[in-house]
């Protein structure tokens, strides 16, 4: 490609000038967080700046600076592997198609339940959880009230929940039975100070990791937990409920993968002071009755 030296210098200088312009541009204004939210729940602190950490790098022997006009078209990413990824994204076999379909469904579920920081900042954690659960078919009861708040099946709006932060609304009970809650969705249910009653009956996606999250989050306040018919829960998840020291009632049932369930429950009854476990049959009562032959 024939290009004159003066034209090339002009391009180089233009590129340098363009770069220097963008580096001194004014910063965008930082969005002001709502003044209503008073609870300073865990905001992500910025990780320490790179200059503070001593990163030792060998000085580069081959300097790869692009100072030509053609640099505008070059890129640092390797597009070769991306092309192959896109080409091979869907495998057109029965298994592959089913896999792709499952991936789409999971992605849809994840996107519908992802944690939205702005919602929690605006409404406060308790009301944000209430909105999240009621919109997806759950029920919520607040401290001091007797009625369960639920979504009207006909309409899309939640009329009985306030749309702004109100301090007196504290969630005391949450009924999530038969909801399709996933692990990432449980992140919406954090920072509730007074949660005492929780029902996850019939939720198909609840497994040991979700129970770990629940017992880590509500270890100090939960008193009633119902995990009937959560098929993925094993005895390790139920054993991790030993972290909840105030648990009074635990309802089990329908865990095909939980082996040694009776032993775990006996050990839980040793550790947790006020626990009552319902749904567990420790021994067959009929064996305790005297047999017919003796009489």
């Amino acid at each position, binding site marked *: *490609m024939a290009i004159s030296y003066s034209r090339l210098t002009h391009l180089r200088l233009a590129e340098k000038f363009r770069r220097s312009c963008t580096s001194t541009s004014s910063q965008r204004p930082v969005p002001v967080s709502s003044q209503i939210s008073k609870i300073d729940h*865990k905001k*992500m*602190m*910025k*990780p*320490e700046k790179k200059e503070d*950490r*001593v*990163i*030792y*790098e*060998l*000085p580069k*022997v*081959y*300097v*790869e*600076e*692009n*100072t*030509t006009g*053609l640099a505008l078209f*070059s890129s*640092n*990413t*390797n597009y070769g*592997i991306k092309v*192959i*990824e896109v*080409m*091979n*994204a869907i*495998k057109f*076999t029965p*298994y592959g198609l089913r896999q792709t379909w499952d991936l789409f469904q999971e992605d849809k579920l994840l996107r519908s339940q992802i944690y939205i920081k702005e919602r929690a900042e605006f409404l406060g954690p308790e009301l944000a959880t209430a909105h999240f659960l009621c919109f997806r078919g759950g029920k919520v009861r607040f401290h001091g009230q007797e009625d369960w708040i639920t979504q009207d099946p006909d309409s899309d709006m939640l009329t009985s929940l306030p749309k702004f932060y109100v301090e007196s609304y504290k969630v005391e009970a949450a009924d999530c039975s038969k909801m399709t809650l996933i*692990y990432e969705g449980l992140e919406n249910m954090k920072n509730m100070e007074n949660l005492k009653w929780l029902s996850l009956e019939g939720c198909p996606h609840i497994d*040991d*990791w979700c*129970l*770990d*999250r629940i*017992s*880590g*989050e509500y*270890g100090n306040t939960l008193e009633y937990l119902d995990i009937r018919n959560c098929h993925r829960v094993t005895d*390790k*998840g139920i*054993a*991790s409920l*030993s*972290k909840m*020291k105030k648990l009074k009632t635990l309802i089990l049932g329908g865990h095909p993968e939980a082996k*040694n369930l009776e*032993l*775990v429950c006996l*050990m*839980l009854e*040793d*550790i947790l002071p006020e626990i009552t476990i319902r749904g567990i049959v420790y021994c067959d009562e009929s064996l305790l009755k005297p047999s017919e032959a003796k009489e």
Partner: protein
Amino acid sequence: MFNRAVTAAQLKPWLKFNYILKNVTFTVRSFCNSCPRYSNKDDEPVKPSILVPEDFQAELDGETYCPPLAQPIKPHVHPIKKSFDLLGITGRNDPKTHNNLYFPRHCDILIIGGGIMGCSIAYWLKQRGHDNGLRVIVVEQDPSYTRASTVLSVGGLRQQFSLPENIEMSLYGAEFLRKSKKLLSGEGLEGPDVQFHPFGYLFLATEKGADQLIANHKLQTSLGAKIQLLSANKLKQKFPWINTDGVELASLGLENEGWFDPWSLLNGFRNKALEMGVEFVKAETVGFETQETIVPEQPGIGDSGCYHKLKRVHVRLHDGDIRTIDFSKCVMAAGAQSGKVSKLAGIGLGTGLLRNALPVEPRKRYVYCFHAPEGPGLDCPLTVDTTGSYFRREGLGGHYVAGKSPTANEEPGVANLDVDYTFFDQQVWPDVALRVPGFENIKLKSAWSGYYDYNTFDQNGVIGIHPYHTNFLFATGFSGHGLQQAPAVGRAIMELVLEGKFLTIDLSRFAFDRVIANQPVFEQNIV
């Protein structure tokens, strides 16, 4: 005329080079002597902006010499195939074809070591784009894993580190374990059940170590880990079986911490890698071959020179035969033996950038299993005492597993995996019995030992490319916490190989460069 091989870029000296020329071989012949040379010999020396210590500058200025590594050997050809060639029948039996039916003779990426790191890297490399055409071979000496660190590990998963890279890697490890059943499943292949026990880690600190614990806790929570600090009183309330003498502060992991089964994760990675087409070769690495590669002169950058590029590995099969495998990139994931095998590549035997050896050596650690009827019971996290001893519950029958890292002058020999029971009586049991009065009445049931891939430099992983052998990557030296970081390290190596840089977690601080520059990156241990 032209004083270099003719390629399009060479004819445009004003373009700075944007691609790596090192992997291309040129034959350079000079036709005339009077062409202008664009070298920077007479320019002023460029001072690097990063502070370079003086002894390191001397290393850089000095020449890097790679000693001769292994003699080239002719590839093994089966005698029947040889006779076919003599007869002139070619095709499937042609020795010149790649993909030798009896032994793979070339690959794109060679992974030395088939433990958790090697299998994880193989999985990540192949799962990018399904049939992405990458040919990956894993060379594993012992497919029954009798002496591998992975399967002998206690299997802990924790986020309580003091370096942000370690914390992020463990967080991703937990996320990967949660999704492992789905990710590592395939057609006809069921994903592994990693059997995660979500009971947390409990670190105890004396008065001296409390400040460090608080600083670590701040960093951990800022990166998303859920850790709770407990004072001595709260600790006693939460765990009534503990004796809080000397404990000032404790940190308990609330979420994503516990222990899991390393064998099932290893099998999960390995089976999925096999399903995706990775070849596992049962052989021992015995040597590397290099090839003198000429780096042509680049105007404005430097003169031409030649360097020894790693091209081929020699492996010994179980019957003593030595075969060769050509590779384009090689990943060192050999665990405890990594230092020894890296020496075969010249790392540590040359001068300049090859002077420093990989500081990874095997260190033996014991794990003891005992029965304690009056032990803590169900709510027992993996407790790490102020003395360095640790213990955790094993199963539901009152069994516990304990161990301790010995001090420098008590290091056991690494010749075999025999267990020293006096270490338990003298070092481990007194510590755990002091901390948990219920452990005074115990019965030792069994014990085993395994090797740490111990990084003698700073006890953290070495992850990155070697500065001289630019097609040689490291993923080793994790000194006991490698298992939980394996998914993240596999992904990091995949990014390095396929993209050229780290995309998700920036592990540039863990590169081999820090060994040459003598800048260790220590994990701040709690006292």
